């Protein structure tokens, strides 16, 4: 291999899947790129862009029976043709020369073996080390990836480690044989912001130390600014833009790249309306909308007044023992009419429990929640039934929150029937059609089933379902977290429009600080069930008081300096 030839070279790669209906779906339409040794290349794209398929094709992990690789495709690794390689060559290559880290560490580690065993296995398989030496090496590796007490943790089972620690183990396993190429497929998506930052730093550090090439796959353009050398932007199985990091961020050539850079909410500006992809794909240049001012003002009408809310869970321990876990401790806040209160926190902070307890999906242990002066937590189930239509919730996962056996019509009509809205079936159907149109779906969607819609469309259906009851308060529990950045912008815009139109109050729960900043008037930061800080959004982001808030804000990926000279969130 001459120093100039790339480590990995993908030429004209085309992949199509045979679908159930017998048709072929082209996941990759002849893409070409190179990865030089010791370089980090970021592959960015939204779901369906083919970024993961690319990684799987390089590893030759695509399911054989319904995948067709187009003739003329070529993947060269150090001059060897991977697509023509036999099983034996591939097995030797995988793990030793090319290693991969997956998105979800919990499901990538085998739960019945200790983490040490799993690293030792890799080492013995690829380097022919003896068990004792391999164990020593495993401990050294765990130390290198920053796992505390590596000598003890080497004998731990995956479930005894936190998510971040598990991902560190995965990284240790991946670098165990000093691979030349490391493929990281969304390695931090399942992790909290602060942990995400640590893992990214670790990856950057290891890349430099070992001189690996890294193919970093992500949907979040903001992440790659930290350490990538080159960026490839993909959409619908095609490469839209490929260039050095600085160029892609400062002078994006492609309209789609520009859109991606702009549709994510930013910490330092709050446009009245977020940019969406279509804004950039039309002929006229994009005009940034005016800024929106937010924040509670004195004299705001308070809709929901929560005082000293507590929720604890009991779990059985032994025969008669009980262990009490306090998920939410003494949380108080006020939600003003037509305003948004954002709740941020990492997993386990109790933010979702607050939402579910207010909906009485969990029974509160203590505290009051005054809704228009009435304590909804003390009501009998019958009394609360009438209140249910005034407070509604939109869940995180649009794939799970709609009943797959119901048509959209049934989904939308059910709450109306339960609460006696509309006098006849025809009237209800009329209302459902109007609402569908309002959330941006055609009225013929009524006869369809949820599985026929994309994630963003499903979230719109979920929003329409809540709107059928004309609620006053809408609890959005990570409602945009599972969506692509561009779809997220559309849904956030929709939520904003609805608030302006109907004067809805939102309780917006999210782990994403930029999104919360964009949509909230007031923000509440939670940690381990307690509120650590609560202030108007602008004040809190500009002058965080609590160390935990500062830590969270510092962990937000800063991206690359924006065209306007400001950091991209």
């Amino acid at each position, binding site marked *: 291999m001459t120093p100039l030839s790339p480590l990995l070279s993908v030429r004209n790669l085309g992949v199509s*899947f045979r679908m159930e209906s017998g048709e072929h779906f082209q996941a990759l339409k002849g893409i070409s790129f190179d990865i030089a040794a010791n370089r980090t290349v970021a592959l960015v794209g939204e779901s369906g862009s083919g970024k993961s398929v690319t990684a799987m094709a390089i590893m030759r992990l695509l399911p054989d029976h319904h995948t067709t690789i187009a003739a003329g495709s070529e993947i060269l690794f150090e001059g060897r043709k991977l697509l023509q390689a036999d099983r034996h060559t591939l097995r030797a290559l995988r793990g030793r020369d090319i290693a991969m880290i997956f998105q979800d560490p919990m499901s990538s580690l085998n739960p019945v073996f200790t983490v040490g065993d799993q690293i030792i296995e890799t080492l013995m398989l690829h380097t022919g080390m003896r068990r004792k030496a391999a164990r020593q090496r495993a401990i050294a590796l765990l130390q290198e990836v920053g796992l505390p007490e590596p000598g003890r943790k080497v004998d731990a089972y995956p479930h005894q480690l936190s998510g971040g620690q598990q991902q560190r183990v995965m990284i240790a396993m991946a670098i165990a044989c000093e691979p030349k190429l490391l493929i990281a497929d969304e390695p931090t998506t399942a992790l909290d912001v602060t942990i995400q930052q640590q893992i990214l730093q670790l990856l950057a550090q290891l890349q430099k130390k070992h001189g690996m090439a890294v193919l970093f796959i992500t949907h979040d353009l903001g992440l790659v600014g930290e350490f990538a050398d080159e960026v490839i932007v993909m959409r619908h199985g095609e490469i839209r833009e490929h260039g050095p990091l600085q160029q892609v961020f400062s002078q994006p050539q492609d309209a789609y790249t520009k859109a991606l850079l702009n549709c994510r909410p930013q910490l330092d500006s709050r446009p009245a309306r977020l940019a969406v992809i279509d804004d950039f794909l039309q002929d006229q240049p994009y005009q940034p909308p005016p800024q929106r001012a937010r924040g509670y003002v004195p004299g705001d009408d308070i809709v929901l007044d929560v005082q000293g809310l507590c929720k604890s869970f009991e779990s059985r321990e032994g025969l008669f023992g009980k262990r009490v876990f306090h998920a939410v401790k003494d949380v108080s806040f006020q939600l003003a009419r037509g305003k948004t209160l954002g709740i941020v926190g990492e997993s386990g902070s109790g933010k979702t429990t607050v939402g579910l307890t207010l909906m009485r999906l969990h029974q509160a242990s203590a505290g009051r929640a005054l809704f228009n002066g009435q304590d909804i937590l003390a009501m009998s189930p019958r009394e609360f039934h009438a209140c249910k239509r005034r407070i509604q919730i939109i869940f995180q996962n649009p794939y799970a929150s709609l009943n*797959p056996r119901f048509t959209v019509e049934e989904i939308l009509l059910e709450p109306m029937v339960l609460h006696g809205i509309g006098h006849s079936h025809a009237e209800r159907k009329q209302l459902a059609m109007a609402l569908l149109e309002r959330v941006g779906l055609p009225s013929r969607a009524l006869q369809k089933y949820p599985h026929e819609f994309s994630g963003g469309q499903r979230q719109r259906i979920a929003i329409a379902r809540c709107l059928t009851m004309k609620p006053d308060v809408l609890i959005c529990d990570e409602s945009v977290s599972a969506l692509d950045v561009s779809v997220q912008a559309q849904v956030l815009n929709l939520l904003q429009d609805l608030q302006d139109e109907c004067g809805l109050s939102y309780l917006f729960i999210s782990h994403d600080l930029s999104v919360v900043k964009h949509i909230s008037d007031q923000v509440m930061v939670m940690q381990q069930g307690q509120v650590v800080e609560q202030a108007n959004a602008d004040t809190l982001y500009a002058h965080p008081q609590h160390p935990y808030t500062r830590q969270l804000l510092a962990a937000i990926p800063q991206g690359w300096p924006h065209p306007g000279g400001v950091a991209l969130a």
Partner: protein
Amino acid sequence: MTNHTPLLAADAACPASRSLWQLGWQRLRRDRIGLAALWVVAAFVLLALAGWLGLAGSHWRHEVAKPNTPPALFKHYGPATVELTAADIDAAQQHHTSTADASAATGMSAEDDPLAADMAAAQAAAAKTAPASTAVPPHDGSLVCGSDSRGRDVLQKVIQGTATSLLVGLSGALLAMLIGTVLGALSGYFGRRVDDLLMWFYSVFTSVPDMLLLLAFSAVMSRGIDTVIMVMALTSWTGTYRLMRAEFMKHKCREYVQAADAIGASHRSRMFRHILPNVTHLLLVQFSLLTVALIKYEAILSFLGFGVGVTQTSWGAMLAEAPAELLQGYWWQMAAVTLCMSLLVTAFSMLTDSLRDALDPKVQ
């Protein structure tokens, strides 16, 4: 996952909208083995239906041929059968008396024989009914499946047996599913005390060996199809119970059920309107598994003499006659039943397999 989205996009683009059931049916139709199995099962169900309605197999109790007539195709292979009539016995006796003294046969003279008068009367009666008995075997040698030891058509018996066995299998499975689903739904959905109570009940039931429980139930109750069905349902709901309990536990925490709670749907609505349709595909698979198991159980019960009553026949009851027949080399009744039963059971099992693949595409 990334490669799921294009699938959705393609679905959304296609104008006709299909429910998950329709998609499942579409998948099943592409599965050739599954479809063939479905046809076989459907044919059996039609046959059973004809049996219940009296369109076929209703004459199974008529003695239409000589006992143990071999099937038409194997006329010359079965053991030769000779039907003894009163005339034959007479002739044999004539022959006997002509060669030896009558007293040598009975040990006494005709005057002393106390049965002589009765025998004479019996012969006279036999002579009266003789024309009817000669009219009996119109089918001689032309029965497709032969006849049994009483001269009944085996084909008719098999059809009737199919009807009985399928009735027992299907309705037993249906009843067992009903018990299992209701208890499992209550147990899994409400949890806590309700679950504890039902689990105790379940544990007590499963601690007794199945066969013993079956025999105990059927020994206590009177014989008959309804008893068999009850017994089967009462002993085989446990598997469905466990399955449904686990499914309801899983689904009640799903977001769509929480969403239903949030919009104010009642417990009953959440259990049976929301969750149940989402587990029916598992119930369907469980149903076909149970049906197969119960058909086999029925055969065992009837074979042991605890099954259907003497006025009814079933595959098990027919198999119960087999040991005595096999000793004499009359194999056709057993062959016919075995063939039917294996065909149905195999087809049913393959259908179950295909159904699971078609309705739960995640396993692929």
